[in-house]
């Protein structure tokens, strides 16, 4: 430890960076959490656990806890599998540019729309008079509410995170390694099983962790789909606060969620920490033609991806249709009036959302790469703690982050409620962990000797980071950038408490429109969000292709590949 402190002293750039990051994490992660803990565990200035016991003693809350774990684990497994299918197809099936673009588009759709829009489309499709269950299959009395639909919607919504995490990793596995196995006489299946899969393990662990955490924190999907028989904790906590005005009970319930999130995190560290996964070294061989996928397997992979894409496409076609008819299900005359409504009455929300997402995106991307780099590559006191703290806001249910921010920043000297800064800060600290995890996973594959060579030649840490490491982890940076922007456009659970008279968001308007029976404007807003995100993403992708330098990893799209 003392050696580490001394090293820190010799490297002022590192020292300053670490101090600034800790100050930010302290202010926007630890401080609100401390204010919330105070509310949950203290009564009149004294520690009091009576309230905690009464909340946790309720069998319904314990049931919700078990349900949350089950759902998160299933979403983690299902989403990782689906993400791997897409990532493997993209990285190894030798697809042309257009196929890759189509794959990216299909995975982006669920990611770029607010989760409850998928949920609403599912209710139309799977209920007792659902378009699919009743009108197509003729099933009577089907239920749209419960574990099955919630799991389906969350898996479809979150698997793109696994895709974003896994694709750069699969792309970074040097095909030469697979070639070596082939030349030693291995079959394709054996190579896949013993070479490719094990090399992707850090990616699997990260993807699972991210999906597990995302599902644990998601309240919008279960709020609409879980129904009465499958309560989950984030929804319970939300209802406890908004419905019963019980901030304390809601805070206790959300602390219960921190336990599994921390457990999964530690498990992942242990699991990934065991092996060596370096494949990108300074001495990489010449590029090779990928031959790890047989022609029949390639067709199978494409068919599976296409099937998933068709399901996604159907949901969004339904959404688009609802935005251009007078009243879905009652009056199917075509109209533009819903778009007219959102561009007049909803203009302020569009304007505010774009400013907030635009400011949050670069900040969040930079923050993710910086923290990821420091955690994976540098030695300094409190490194592990920084990694853990940076994940907290992601793992906590958004509702709780929102309430914690509201409580912490409502009074001087930090009276930030009502400003856009509070929403930007919420997004940056809540959604940059994807960038952090992607950076860490990528760096685990890059041989530190490249950086050591730079430092051996006399470059300082800042210079080495800028000139050597940053280009190498650019895919992770853009993955992080993309996720922060997308979430800024689509998230709701935390920000529903942070929007104000001065700053309002499209997602909040969508939820309001849905509860007001104005399905048309809600669908029109959703279509607009999807369109904006696609345009911005295409612009980043184009810029990145133009700027790409020869030494960096191949970046085929803004999502990092």
């Amino acid at each position, binding site marked *: 430890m003392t050696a580490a402190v001394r090293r820190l002293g010799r490297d002022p750039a590192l020292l300053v960076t670490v101090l600034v990051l800790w100050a930010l994490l302290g202010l926007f992660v630890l401080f609100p959490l401390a204010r919330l803990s105070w509310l949950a565990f203290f009564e009149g200035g004294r520690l009091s656990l009576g309230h905690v016991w009464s909340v946790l003693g309720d069998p319904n809350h314990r049931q919700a806890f078990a349900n949350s774990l089950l759902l998160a684990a299933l979403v983690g497994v299902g989403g990782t599998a689906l993400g791997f299918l897409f990532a493997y197809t993209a990285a190894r099936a030798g697809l042309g540019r257009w196929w890759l673009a189509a794959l990216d588009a299909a995975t982006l759709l669920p990611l770029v729309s607010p989760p409850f829009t998928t949920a609403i489309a599912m209710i139309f499709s799977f209920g007792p008079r659902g378009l699919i269950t009743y009108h197509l299959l003729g099933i009577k009395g089907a239920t749209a509410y419960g574990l099955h639909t919630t799991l389906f919607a969350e898996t479809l919504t979150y698997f793109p995170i696994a895709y974003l995490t896994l694709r750069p990793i699969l792309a970074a596995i040097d095909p030469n390694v697979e070639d070596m196995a082939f030349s030693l006489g291995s079959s394709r299946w054996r190579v896949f099983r013993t070479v490719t899969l094990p090399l992707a393990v850090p990616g699997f662990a990260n993807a699972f962790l991210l999906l597990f955490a995302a599902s644990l924190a998601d309240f919008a999907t279960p709020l609409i789909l879980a129904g009465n028989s499958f309560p989950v904790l984030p929804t319970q906590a939300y209802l406890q606060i*908004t419905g019963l*005005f019980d901030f304390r009970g809601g805070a206790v319930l959300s602390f219960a969620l921190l336990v599994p999130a921390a457990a999964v995190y530690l498990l992942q560290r242990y699991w990934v920490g065991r092996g060596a996964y370096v494949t990108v070294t300074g001495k990489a061989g010449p590029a090779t033609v990928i031959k790890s996928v047989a022609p029949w397997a390639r067709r199978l992979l494409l068919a599976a991806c296409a099937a998933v894409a068709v399901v996604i496409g159907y949901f969004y076609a339904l959404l688009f249709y609802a935005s251009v008819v007078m*009243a879905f299900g009652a*009056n199917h005359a075509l109209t533009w009036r819903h778009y007219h409504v959102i561009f007049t009455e909803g203009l302020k929300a569009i304007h505010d959302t774009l400013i907030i997402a635009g400011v949050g995106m670069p900040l969040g991307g930079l923050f993710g790469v910086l923290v990821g780099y420091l955690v994976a590559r540098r030695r300094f006191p409190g490194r592990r703690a920084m990694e853990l703290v940076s994940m907290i806001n992601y793992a906590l249910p958004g509702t709780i982050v929102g309430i914690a921010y509201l409580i912490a920043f409502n009074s001087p000297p930090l009276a930030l409620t009502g400003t856009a800064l509070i929403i930007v800060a919420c997004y940056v600290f809540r959604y940059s962990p994807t960038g952090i995890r992607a950076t860490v996973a990528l760096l685990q594959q890059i041989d530190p000797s490249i950086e050591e060579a730079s430092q051996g030649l006399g470059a300082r840490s800042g210079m080495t980071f800028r000139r050597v490491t940053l280009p190498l982890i650019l895919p992770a940076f853009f993955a992080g950038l993309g996720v922060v922007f997308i979430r800024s456009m689509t998230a709701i659970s935390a920000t529903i408490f942070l929007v104000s008279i001065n700053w309002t968001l499209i997602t909040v308007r969508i939820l309001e429109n849905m*509860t007001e029976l104005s399905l048309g404007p809600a669908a029109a807003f959703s279509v607009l969000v999807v369109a904006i995100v696609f345009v911005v993403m295409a612009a980043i992708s184009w810029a990145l292709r133009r700027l790409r330098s020869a030494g960096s990893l191949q970046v085929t799209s803004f999502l990092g590949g």
Partner: protein
Amino acid sequence: MSRARAGLYRLAIAVLTATTLTSPAVAADTLNAYSIWPENWARPMLQEFEQATGIKVNFVRFSSGEALARVIAEKGNPQVDVLFGGPVETFAAGIKEGIFEPYKPPSFGSLPARFKQGEGYWVAIADDPLVFMTNAKFLKEASLKPPASWEDLLNPAYKGMLQMADARTSGTAVTRIFSIIEVNGRNEDKAFDYMKKLRRNVQVYTKSGGGGTLPVGLGQAGGGIFFIVDALDTKAKGYDVVISFPREGIGTSAEAIALLKGAKHPELGKKLIDWATSPAMQSLFAKHKINFVPASPEVKVEPSLAEVLKGAKIFPIDDAYAGANRKRVVDRWISEVLNAKE
């Protein structure tokens, strides 16, 4: 542009934006409000207020539970001046939290007792009865008549086909529960027996009061219990739904307005309350096709709304009784009805 200069340029933009973002916009004659009324009703009414007085109302809409939670959380630093619309039990819950500033508008004296809080912590601006709303096609297929009694909703034909609001978030649900207690002669055990039986027919309890109207309109649910404004709006959108009333009677809830303690524009807030509680405002409901029943005795009920209400037995929920028992009854509903194990 060199790399370092590009970086500086970006930093400058970030700092500039950050400083502008932290300073909220302020205008001279503007007041701020949280509206519990949905936007498509609040917007035209508040625009009428702006035309009448020149005062602009800056507002955001939240459902009653969310709005109340926000106002409580913002107590030390209120972001708005007025809480506008929403069932009276939400306001009753707020009085205990000390978030309101009492104010009696000029029309206070002429309002019936159930449309105002004695000390002026809230004043009613409209009345909103509950109704049964069913899907016409569903009724036909199941050969059912529109439900005309609370007992009709227990018919097994409705099994898993009713949607209504969750009492944890929705004022509609609380009004419904007190209606059921009232028709059972305030015999709570009897009322809860009924609600437990009713639960078998409930597909899902929705977060907001109007949440089930669209599923009922689409036929995804067969029917439910809603406020009349939501039900008539569903019908106006073109969905084939039937509105009916139970012969035993059904409750109605007043919609209220209140001034917040520590409001930054109290004088403007009072002007809004003066206007919202006046006959001038409530006679505009009909013009904007908003199916609230006016609270002011001077405003006549719009003829087509009066036609729907004709013959219906509607009783007010006793707000003193509801206020005193609300938390206990909702807790009981959560443990005995919502989380019932069968």
